[in-house]
């Protein structure tokens, strides 16, 4: 070797695929590290024993049966939006508009609940709600997709902007349909007749949502892994040129996948309005459209792993909420902890995909 060129201390090389238990060991390690850092932060802020903090987090999520149901319901809703954005992500089409698509779905559902009673029987109202909110979500995602397919308009920025258009549209209708007058929000829709409210299974208010989302999850897993469409999505995501070469109509796949993505988001909005809250506010989706991006990515776009990652994020935010209440801190404390944990998990992906090769000591050559 030429003496003038100095070999750097280390260099980075791409790894071949690791066995699954090692990748999950790395992620688990990152999570443990993150939890230690979070405990340190919490101790610094509250001055409490970190173990007690974790007991509080656990109690915040599993303390009572009501809390468990709320936890499961939140996991289901987050999972639903995450499942929705996943097909687009597999295609490397960054749909950051889950928030807006779900909101529009919710708006369509609320519109049916407010305008249709008296004209149609209850079951027909529910059918109308379902159809219209799924359609509305699909249209909201279809607009950016159309421009992406035809003119290659940047979908990340387009869908992002569509979120705010949707928010303002909902804010507009919140004032139009306000009740009581002058309050600026809609309040519970049809509180007496309960028209358009989804039926309750037994005494479990949230069970229906959870079952629907579980069904969507299984369907999405099968669609992505075992159907021709799923295969086409994967090929377009890996290489658009290859897809074109083997005769896949890329434009068509983009539009179809985004429509599906929006439709499932619309379903999430429908569940939020029709089944959970029975009202509509501009913040009803509660940032899930953005959290879903992280859920989906953390699970490597695999619907089954997403159950785990969405559970993790909801568990943490509910637990952090409990800490905040217990130590009378601000509720935003949960966002800080979530952020720290995300940073660690995001960083850990590097060690799964790459390895660091250190310089060999001088004189040793192989």
């Amino acid at each position, binding site marked *: 070797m030429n003496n003038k060129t100095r070999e750097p201390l280390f260099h980075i090389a791409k790894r071949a695929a690791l066995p699954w238990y090692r990748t999950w060991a790395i992620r688990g390690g990152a999570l443990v590290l993150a939890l230690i850092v979070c405990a340190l932060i919490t101790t610094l802020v509250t001055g409490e024993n970190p173990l007690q903090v974790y007991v509080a987090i656990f109690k915040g999520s599993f303390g009572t049966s009501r809390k468990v149901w709320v936890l499961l319901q939140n996991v289901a809703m987050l999972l639903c939006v995450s499942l929705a954005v996943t097909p687009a992500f597999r295609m490397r089409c960054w749909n950051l508009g889950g928030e807006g698509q779900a909101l529009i779905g919710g708006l369509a559902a609320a519109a049916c609940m407010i305008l249709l009673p008296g004209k149609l029987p209850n079951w027909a109202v529910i059918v109308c709600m379902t159809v219209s909110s799924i359609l509305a979500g699909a249209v909201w995602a279809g607009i950016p997709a159309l421009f992406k397919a035809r003119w290659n308009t940047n979908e990340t920025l387009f869908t992002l902007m569509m979120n705010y258009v949707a928010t303002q549209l909902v804010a507009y209708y919140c004032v139009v349909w306000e009740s009581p007058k002058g309050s600026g929000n809609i309040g519970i829709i049809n509180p007496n007749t309960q028209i358009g409210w989804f039926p309750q299974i037994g005494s479990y208010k949230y069970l229906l949502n959870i079952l629907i989302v579980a069904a969507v999850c299984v369907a999405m897993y099968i669609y992505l892994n075992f159907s021709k469409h799923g295969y086409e999505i994967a090929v377009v995501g890996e290489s658009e040129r290859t897809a074109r070469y083997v005769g896949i109509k890329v434009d068509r796949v983009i539009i179809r996948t985004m429509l599906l993505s929006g439709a499932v988001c619309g379903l999430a909005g429908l569940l939020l309005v029709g089944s959970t809250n029975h009202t509509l506010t501009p913040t009803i989706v509660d940032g899930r459209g953005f959290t879903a991006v992280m859920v989906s*990515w953390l699970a490597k776009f695999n619907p089954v792993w997403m159950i785990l990652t969405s559970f993790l994020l909801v568990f943490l935010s509910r637990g952090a909420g409990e800490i905040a209440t217990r130590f009378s801190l601000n509720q935003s404390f949960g966002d800080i902890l979530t952020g720290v944990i995300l940073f660690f998990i995001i960083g850990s992906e590097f060690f799964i995909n790459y390895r660091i090769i250190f310089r060999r000591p001088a004189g040793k050559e192989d």
Partner: protein
Amino acid sequence: MFDFISFIPRAVVQGIPLLLGSTGETLTEKSGNLNLGIPGVMYVGAICGVIGSFFYEQSHPGDAFQPLVGILIPLCCCLIGSLLMGLLYCFLTVTLRANQNVTGLAITTFGVGFGNFFGGSLIKLSGSSLPSIILTPTSNAFRRSLPLSPALAGSWFGKLFLSYGFLAYIAVIIALTAAYVLSRTRTGLHLRAVGESPNTADAAGINVARYKYAATCLGSVIAGLGGLYYVMDYASGVWTNDAFGDRGWLAIALVIFTIWRPNVGVLASFLFGGLYILHMYIPSGMNLAIKEIYKMAPYVVTIIVLIITSMRNKREDQPPASLGLAYFREER
């Protein structure tokens, strides 16, 4: 008659945080990093400034308050806070090659949470007896405009051009400087090369990682200043949780609207500021709902610009070609 003399200064004041945010994001995007963490960075910049000046005001009440120190402390805190966020983003996306969208959204979650947490708990944590964070002396120092004769200050010229705090002028200077550096200097050329094709830039001997780090950190610092301007000047030193709202996303929208040109951003940000407050100036009578539709305007305008630029497909109007992609030398 539409009152332009009172409308325009308010539009400008609304526009300055957007201008700083979008100038920072433009620099970042020119290096190929799509930093969706800008809203979070602006929150962090704002709250770090608030924390700095809060403790300074606590320790120097009344006459002991030095306006110059009162400006420098929050300014430094803000710069350090937003620099750290920029470094974190760079470390994750450039060194560890993580996905930029996910990292950016995580930064936003963290930053907004950080801002709201300390904004809401600062008083409790510091054990002071104040009811809320109101930093009037610091804000007065930030808002002080040029010492003008009353006649000039009252004229339309004074109101339109000379009525702002010093950060507003700095924002315009930063934007114009950034535009000059990007389009007229060798550094700017190298930076654009890194954003368009890091492979080519690397082959030409440009240190891709260093440029990405420098541009993204500088961009974060500038964006953080936007947050500081908002809380110290626009909001008169009063911190309210979530008051900053969606301005961070609007700053990202502005980057697209200006097709990655900070000098266009100066006027465009004032236009956006105007669109943002248009609903207060358009007489709508009793129809409150229609105001919500007017608030949609900046986003709709951005979407239209996004569509038009992609349809015209002119080469100089496109986003940097490698925007959003991590660079790894051994990959092709």
